[in-house]
């Protein structure tokens, strides 16, 4: 019993500690979301429910931008889906480490799956010990989640105080830029990102923002194509 308690405590605490520096990135983001939501006329209850129920920053802020542009709600949900598709990849990668847990744990930990949570769990949980995994995951995810929710509330409260001329909404593309740099790890990634970026501008006047959809699709195809080509080139080099 004591040993079990020790595992719970140390894993939980080390998870919480490991995520602390990442709170610095989460908090301004949450404040921007809350303040932005209020500034475009969304009620405090809706802004906070959005964060509690969806719990995914980039998708939430992008949805607000599209809402402001009077895009059809179904298309906005579709955009949320596109932005959050990556969670499926994360889910697939973590499933191997978490499959021994019971359903309640799986349902709770799924709700808490985010970019930072995924990266930290993948980095740390090498040992095959599901009990340690779940408490470490709990520590990381709870820290990230509470920082996100509390900073959203703070943003909602501060929203009316921040003047529009400061154009704080510009923080969003800036945070996206910073996030993007972390993903440009290989040549196919870089080329696919540049392709979709250029296409998004060229096709920006298509109705219902279909330009966004096409640029994403073509960007992915270009990335896959280049990756494939690199592989064939490499395999033809004589040893």
């Amino acid at each position, binding site marked *: 019993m004591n040993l079990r308690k020790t595992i719970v405590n140390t894993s939980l605490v080390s998870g919480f500690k490991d995520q602390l520096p990442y709170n610095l990135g989460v908090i301004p983001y949450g404040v921007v979301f809350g303040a932005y939501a209020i500034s475009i006329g969304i009620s405090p209850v809706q802004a906070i429910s959005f964060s509690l129920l969806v719990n995914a920053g980039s998708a939430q802020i992008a949805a607000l931008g599209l809402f402001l542009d009077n895009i059809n*709600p179904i298309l906005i949900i579709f955009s949320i889906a596109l932005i959050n598709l990556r969670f499926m990849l994360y889910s697939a990668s973590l499933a191997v480490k978490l499959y021994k847990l019971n359903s309640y744990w799986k349902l709770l930990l799924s709700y808490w799956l985010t970019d930072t949570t995924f990266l930290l769990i993948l980095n740390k949980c090498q040992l095959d010990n599901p009990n340690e995994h779940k408490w470490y995951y709990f520590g990381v995810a709870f820290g990230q989640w509470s920082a996100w929710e509390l900073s959203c509330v703070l943003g909602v409260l501060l929203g009316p105080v921040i003047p529009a001329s400061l154009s704080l909404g510009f923080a969003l593309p800036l945070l996206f830029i910073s996030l993007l740099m972390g993903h440009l790890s290989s040549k196919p990634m870089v080329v696919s990102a540049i392709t*979709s970026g250029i296409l998004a*501008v060229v096709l920006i006047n298509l109705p219902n923002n279909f330009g966004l959809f096409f640029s994403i699709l073509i960007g992915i195809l270009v990335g896959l194509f280049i990756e494939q080509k690199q592989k064939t080139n490499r395999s033809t080099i004589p040893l």
Partner: protein
Amino acid sequence: MNSQSMWIIIIGGMIVTYIFRSSFIVFLKNGNIPIVLFKSLRFTPAVVLSALIMQMLVKNGEAVQLSINNPRIIAGIIAIIIAWKFHNTGLTLITGMCSLWLFTFIIK
């Protein structure tokens, strides 16, 4: 738009997001997914982010403004260079916001 369509977005967003998150953790026993899907999914974050960033930079208010007189484009380019050089979120945020304020002031 009204608050009802915002609720539709919130509930719909919750459902799709939760399905993606729980997909493999809850429903798959061994975590194997088709290789083509896995490869495509790896590209989505970079591609989606890049497209969103570019659209946000060229839009000045409601209108698309593709010119050097759009302070968002200049500030965005500066932020991209800073982010690429230093990989620091706080620094990117501060430089980007200050550049935007500076160039908005100059261009006016």
